């Protein structure tokens, strides 16, 4: 599958344009600290967007991914309250995420149910469970180490004062690059694209489609747990509405990154670029005191325009995805 094409080039160009434009317009936008800050809207969303993109390429979708973030954050909090050290807390979160993904995957592959409906159900179920266990309370008092993970810079971690790259951005970038390599350079990635492009033909060719789909749902759950841990570290608390609505952000990022909603096509590099573009855009608008809801509106409009443009522009040759 092509990782770098015209769409990705356009996204990269837009990112540069954005930074240049806002750099001139807003004082201090291009300072190292601001640049580092501008990634705050990128890191956690990038992680779930990559997992979502893989699922969409395989012909599925996971609307429960943000709810899984909340539930695994809750598991971390409960583990903390039970006296567990940080590694065990993280393990509890990851395990919860994996189980959430397993339920989705099982219902889709073993019971043959459409993933959109299943994940609408599990979305309600997981958020509901978080509500039941937490009510309108919040869990706070997380250890320093977790806060460092969410807020600290690489410089603080390894003792190099000038390195202001946030730790969570580094983690997210590593994650994204790994997913991109997996999807574009390995046999497994090729098979995933085949499953999304034509599941019947893929099966006829000997690909164990169900196994891959199950694996991708579990992976999405683990990714959600990772993103949830980072987010919890950054904001320092767990509430039932953690990351509310983020599943739509993840889908928007994937679609703007060039992933086809019907599956079988899409560049992971495009998704990475789209996440960075949207994150920077959100950050810049925030600096201009544009309210969050208006930013969402603009993103919604962008999504539609991004979908309509290819249909309206003439003369696209049938180059394969």
């Amino acid at each position, binding site marked *: 599958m092509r990782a770098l094409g015209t769409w990705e080039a356009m996204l990269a160009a837009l990112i540069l344009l954005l930074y240049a434009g806002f750099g001139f317009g807003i004082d201090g936008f291009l300072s190292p600290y601001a640049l580092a800050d501008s990634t705050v809207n990128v890191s956690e969303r990038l992680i779930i967007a990559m997992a979502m993109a893989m699922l969409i390429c395989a012909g599925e979708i996971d609307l429960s991914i943000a709810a899984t973030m909340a539930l695994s954050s809750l598991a971390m909090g409960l583990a903390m309250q039970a006296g567990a050290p940080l590694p065990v807390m993280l393990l509890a979160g990851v395990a919860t995420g994996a189980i959430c993904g397993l339920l989705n995957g099982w219902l889709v592959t073993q019971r043959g149910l459409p993933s959109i409906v299943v994940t609408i159900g599990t979305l309600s179920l*997981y958020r509901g469970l978080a509500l039941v266990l937490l009510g309108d309370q919040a869990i706070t008092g997380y250890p320093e180490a977790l806060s460092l993970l969410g807020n600290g810079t690489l410089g603080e971690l390894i003792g190099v004062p000038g390195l202001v790259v946030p730790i969570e951005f580094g983690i997210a970038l590593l994650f994204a690059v790994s997913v991109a390599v997996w999807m574009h350079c390995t046999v497994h990635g090729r098979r995933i694209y085949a499953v999304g492009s034509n599941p019947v033909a893929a099966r006829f060719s000997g690909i164990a489609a169900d196994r891959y789909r199950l694996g991708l749902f579990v992976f999405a759950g683990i990714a959600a747990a990772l993103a949830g841990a980072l987010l919890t570290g950054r904001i320092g608390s767990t509430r039932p509405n953690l990351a509310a609505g983020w599943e739509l952000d993840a889908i*928007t990022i994937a679609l703007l990154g060039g992933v086809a909603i019907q599956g079988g096509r899409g560049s992971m590099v495009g998704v990475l670029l789209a996440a960075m573009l949207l994150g920077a855009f959100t950050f810049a608008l925030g600096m201009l005191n544009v309210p969050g809801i208006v930013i969402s509106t603009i993103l919604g409009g962008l999504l539609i325009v991004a979908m309509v443009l290819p249909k309206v522009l003439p003369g696209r040759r049938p180059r394969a995805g």
Partner: protein
Amino acid sequence: MTTSGFKLSREASLLVVIAAIVLLVGWRAPVFLTLRSALDVANESALLAILVAGQMVVLLTRGVDLSVASNLALTGMVCALVGRSFPSLPIAVLLLLALGVGAALGAVNGLLIALCRLPAIVVTLGTMAVYRGVAFLASNGAWVSEQDIHAGIKALPRTELLGVPLLIVIAGCVVGLVAAWLRWGQAGREVRALGNNPGAAVYVGIPERTRLLQVYALSGALAGLAGVLWVGRYAIAFSDLAAGYELTVIAACVIGGVSIAGGVGSIAGAMGGVLFLGVVNAALPVIQVSPFWQQAIAGAVILLSVALNAGSRARASLPILEKS
């Protein structure tokens, strides 16, 4: 009429489950079995019923409308603002305004889906965000508080027609009209056919684009109507109205046996789903279960419904082997 004994039992079994819940809860708390209680449930469910009527028609065409809650918020806000500026406007005008604005917003979806051939889930995801934002901008982020809400709008939930609350009457009319349209209007068959076999629609001469446009406009109009009623019911208008409610609407449809793949489902079933959610939500405080359980229960029920739906409709391959 597409009834087979099999399909009737799907809706019937839902009714049985609802009856069982009512009886069980009523046994623990007899207050649950009163007429008052039933009217409360109906009142609570009226707005959901109106939204579900529109959504199930969209689902029949193999589409989905995720923007209904945002449409509701925007149209409600528009009506609230207009009502605030023109307090002497008759309520009927405001109701018509709601239907018109809602239909226009729905038609935008319809145009993008039918004419530009974009997937419904993506389009309505986008309009979902856009409509809410427009609601925010229209009101400059401010709320329209109770004293500023048009008197006619506020009076709606308190009005009664022959002893029945107006909301229930309106919901009943809407559901009845949609049911009639599906059964006796030509569009009703065609909408089902579109969801069942979209490719074949061309061959048999179904006007696909017109039908899709109509269907999304209908869903939008009903969302608009629900919007002005919502504003009246809660006597407030703000941009975050009914946030997330679109999932409840879809949940009710799924529970009621409407298939996400199109072509399958009935108004009766969808209303069963509405009733189910209404009864469960009403039962929770009565049996002293915290309302925090609502969402988790809804989720579990969706999963069960979908699993049951799929199980009973499992397509056996056409039997080839002749019994010798």
